[in-house]
């Protein structure tokens, strides 16, 4: 094993599917290099069979999340300086999702749960020519704003231990989305969202460990959204609304 130097990185990358192994690559270190740059270098210059997923490279699309040195991260905005230990990085696919090949996971179970959580906007009156008037200062709008910037990268889902032990659990991202809709004054049927996220596979399974909040690259707080859903579903049931 070479001594760590400032001009090269020792990178272990997961190769294979669910069964596989880490393979070691040596990559030149550069200034302001991101983990995605490292993976791209390996794929372009060292091993063209490496599979991974990315699109925008600027932290908008949510497609490049991977496990970097044991933590789920968005690789396009993760600088090597921040994560490399003695010039070494280990890169694996996201946890809690089926591995397709190498660093690419199947995101279908993740997005299927958004559907199960009824995490889509239900318009009040699609034909109305009127603008909805929503006060930016209202508590509901501020709650919605706090969670609205999710890019669907799956980092919170990979970080969540409840997802790991209860495969039916909807997960932080889908629940966070549901919470933004419950607080959207324009949404036609908040009860529909609440009924979909209550119970064993929904918000009530959350242990408030806040791993989602700790790891979210957009600094959102899905744990707070889930706590809000717990209160709102209990209130709605006691009032007979769901």
């Amino acid at each position, binding site marked *: 094993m070479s001594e760590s130097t400032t001009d090269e990185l020792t990178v272990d990358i997961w190769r294979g599917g669910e069964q596989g192994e880490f393979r070691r690559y040596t990559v030149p270190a550069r200034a302001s290099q991101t983990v995605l740059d490292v993976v791209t270098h390996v794929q372009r210059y060292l091993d063209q069979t490496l599979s991974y997923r990315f699109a925008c490279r600027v932290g908008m699309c949510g497609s490049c999340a991977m496990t970097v040195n044991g933590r789920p991260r968005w690789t396009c905005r993760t600088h090597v300086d921040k994560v490399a230990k003695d010039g070494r990085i280990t890169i694996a696919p996201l946890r809690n999702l089926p591995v397709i090949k190498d660093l690419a996971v199947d995101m279908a179970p993740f997005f299927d749960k958004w559907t199960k959580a009824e995490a889509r906007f239900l318009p009040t009156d699609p034909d109305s020519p009127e603008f909805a008037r929503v006060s930016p200062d209202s508590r509901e709008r501020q709650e919605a704003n706090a969670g609205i910037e999710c890019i669907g990268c799956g980092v919170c889902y990979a970080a969540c231990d409840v997802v790991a032990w209860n495969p039916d659990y909807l997960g932080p991202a889908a629940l966070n989305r549901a919470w933004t809709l419950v607080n959207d004054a324009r949404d036609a049927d908040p009860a529909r969202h609440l009924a979909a996220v209550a119970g064993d596979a929904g918000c009530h399974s959350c242990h408030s460990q806040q791993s989602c909040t700790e790891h979210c690259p957009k600094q959102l707080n899905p744990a707070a959204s889930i706590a809000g859903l717990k209160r709102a579903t209990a209130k709605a049931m*006691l009032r007979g609304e769901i």
Partner: protein
Amino acid sequence: MSAVSAGRLSGRTRHELWLYVVQRGTALVMAPLVVVHLAVIVYAVQGGLSAGEILGRTRGSLLWGAFYGVFVVAASLHAAVGLRNIVSELTPWRGRSLMWAATLFAVVLIVLGLRAVAAVVGG
């Protein structure tokens, strides 16, 4: 998550949500009771503790009877719901049989607890 119809809870989900409400509700009830319980322990052990001293305080006291009666019921429900959650998360045991086991556990705790309360308040 099998909602009967959109916007309505299924029977099973409603049941789960009620258990959640019961557990949070009993926690709310127990918080002040635990504080009083601990404060009385600290006060009561000053200068030694004897069965006679305890019974002198509790015997015939409706207040302490009600206090610990409520405490026992709240703790029993809270423990049974929590234990059921822990078992279903850590083991494959789920469903109706686990529900009955947890219910039995709650009943045993309530019976034993209320017996103890009756013993120190009555007689």
